[in-house]
């Protein structure tokens, strides 16, 4: 297990981790611009500031491992290996999107990469991840599932029930709580009685809390938990302390609800995961990554915007896996 850990961590170069956080950051910045330009309808929940968690945790996973994501899911989906172009095409509602334009930001999924989907319902992913990991490991060699969720999700009954099921049945799932201090406008202090790790620990789940702003730290914390889950030690829990740099959702850019002072936001943004990891590369290498990412993002946006939107006549396609077509709403 220690071996696995070491190998897992060592297998990931600082440049690789940097590339991931930089990719997510630039993807989100461009996505916000596309929200402003109206190319992304409905807005997004930006992941900016929390990139270290997706990057660090997914670096500890194997290609066939599984994840469930959240409403703030772009980072997870990209870190698990999704094609940024098809991801951007999904956000802009194109047939070339990961979900053929049916899902959008809150449901982006790539089952071929073990990405079981972002989810619009807070806390919904935990039980799905547990069932998926259980099934995968029953049908073949153990595959670990990571369920990402926010601090708000630890107050959702179904997630707490999932902790119990996973612990009882020793399911290879790692629960990753991204504690960014807020559920929309509500602080953790006003929302969570007791400690977040204590909540997981009460179900007999080993729980650790780490600095979620440093990709390397997150990777080093995640790798042994993933290895332990894979080795049959049952579910593991990782709390990552982080900060949401931008809006809860892009509607905030217009509505501007007051719940975080300018000073608090400035303080929260003072430690930037992209810079923290970037500082570990020498200038030339960092620049090379940055340039490559600019290309990738530019190509992603171009691909998305030239792709076709799905045709209204196909609006009920995929409603049923069996191809059943529902009766129309008007004859």
């Amino acid at each position, binding site marked *: 297990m220690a071996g696995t850990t070491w190998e897992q961590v060592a297998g990931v170069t600082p440049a690789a981790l940097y590339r991931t956080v930089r990719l997510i950051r630039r993807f989100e910045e461009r996505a916000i611009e596309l929200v402003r330009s109206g190319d*992304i*309808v*409905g*807005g997004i929940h930006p992941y900016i500031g929390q990139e270290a968690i997706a990057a660090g945790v997914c670096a500890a996973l194997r290609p066939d491992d599984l994840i469930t994501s959240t409403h703030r899911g772009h980072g997870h989906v990209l870190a698990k290996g999704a094609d940024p172009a098809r991801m951007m095409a*999904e956000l802009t*509602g*194109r047939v070339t999107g990961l*979900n053929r*334009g*049916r*899902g*959008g*930001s*809150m*449901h982006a999924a790539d089952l071929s990469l073990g990405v079981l989907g972002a*989810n*619009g*319902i*807070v*806390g919904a992913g935990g039980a799905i991840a547990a069932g998926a990991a259980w099934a995968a490991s029953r049908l073949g060699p153990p595959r670990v599932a990571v369920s990402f969720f926010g601090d*708000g*999700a630890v*107050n*959702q*009954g179904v997630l707490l029930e999932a902790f119990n099921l996973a612990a009882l049945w020793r399911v290879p799932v790692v629960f990753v709580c991204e504690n960014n201090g807020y*559920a*929309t*406008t*509500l602080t953790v202090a*006003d*929302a*969570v009685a007791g400690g977040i790790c204590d909540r997981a620990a009460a179900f007999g789940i080993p729980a650790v809390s780490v600095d979620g702003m440093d990709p390397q730290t997150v990777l080093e914390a995640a790798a042994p938990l993933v290895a332990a889950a894979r080795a049959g030690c049952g579910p593991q829990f990782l709390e990552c302390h982080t900060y949401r740099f931008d809006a809860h959702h892009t509607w905030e850019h217009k*509505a501007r*609800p*007051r*719940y975080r002072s300018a000073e608090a936001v400035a303080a929260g943004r003072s430690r930037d995961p992209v810079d923290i990891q970037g500082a570990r590369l020498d200038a030339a290498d960092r620049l090379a990554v940055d340039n490559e990412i600019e290309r990738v993002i530019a190509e992603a946006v171009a691909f998305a915007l030239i792709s076709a*939107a*799905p*045709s*209204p*006549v*196909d*609006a*009920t396609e995929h*409603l*049923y896996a069996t191809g059943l077509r*529902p*009766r*129309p*709403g*008007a*004859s």
Partner: protein
Amino acid sequence: MTILSYLKALGRALGDEMARDERVCVLGEDVRVGVSNVTNGLLDRFGPDRVLDTPLSEQAFTSFATGAALLGMRPVVEFQIPSLLFLTFEQIANQAHKFSLMTGGQARVPVTFLVPGSGSRLGWAGQHSDHPYSLFAHVGVKTCVPATPSDAYGLLASAIRDDDPVIVFAPAGALGLRADLVLSSLAPVPLGVGRVARPGSDVTVVAVGHHVTDALAVADDLRGDVSVEVFDPRTVYPFDWAGLAASLERTGRLVVIDDSNRMCGLGAEIVATASEEMRLVAPPRRVSRPDGTVLPFAEALDRALQPNRAQLTAAIQAVVKD
């Protein structure tokens, strides 16, 4: 005269009822900041004991409200997403709704559930675009879908004063409406009483929520050719059957436009009851969402599955031909 938006009308009803009765309180996510733009300002006016920000524990705070209502409070629970009613279906349909009968009339549960922005919010995709009022009509929870700012005010006020659980759906498609009205004219609107939004003689169009605006527009387009009566039930359960029967006495023809899924939706009930009991000289028609609808993300697909004016126009023309 003052210009009042639908959203402001909801907020005004809340504020007026809280001022009128100190047992009225509000619970929900981000209600203090007022993220839904309904509860803004209530915290300053009524304080934190009456405006409670809840953690993401919809099931518990829904039954918490039921428990508070059993002891005499009149809580208003705000839900940020229509599908949170799925998450709390047990607490609403199996607990709050059933307490009066199961206790043989000992208990009353005067709780109001408010969903600002029900139905499609373009671009919010499959889990944020449901319009599940027919589910609650089926289980028998009192349910309103106001179409105008003054009905938004009046029905929410009546819901809060009602001694049974009541759900108020405020369709995303109606939130932006504005009305030019005399504020002093705002008053409770009785539950279960519809209104003729426009009188006509050839066909009755029953339109629900934001589709009342569509029905009025279509009626206008067709004037000259077809005289369309627009009937807005306002409350979907209990339904104003007498009001509908009176309208069908005049017209004998029926079209329903309803943002429910077709199968077992409100439109089905209206068509069924009219067919069983009321005057119909031609087969009725429905304009609804398809069966089992999940709204896809892409804008064109989302729009394609919502009832629209073209479909309504076609249905009216077909019904008057028959």
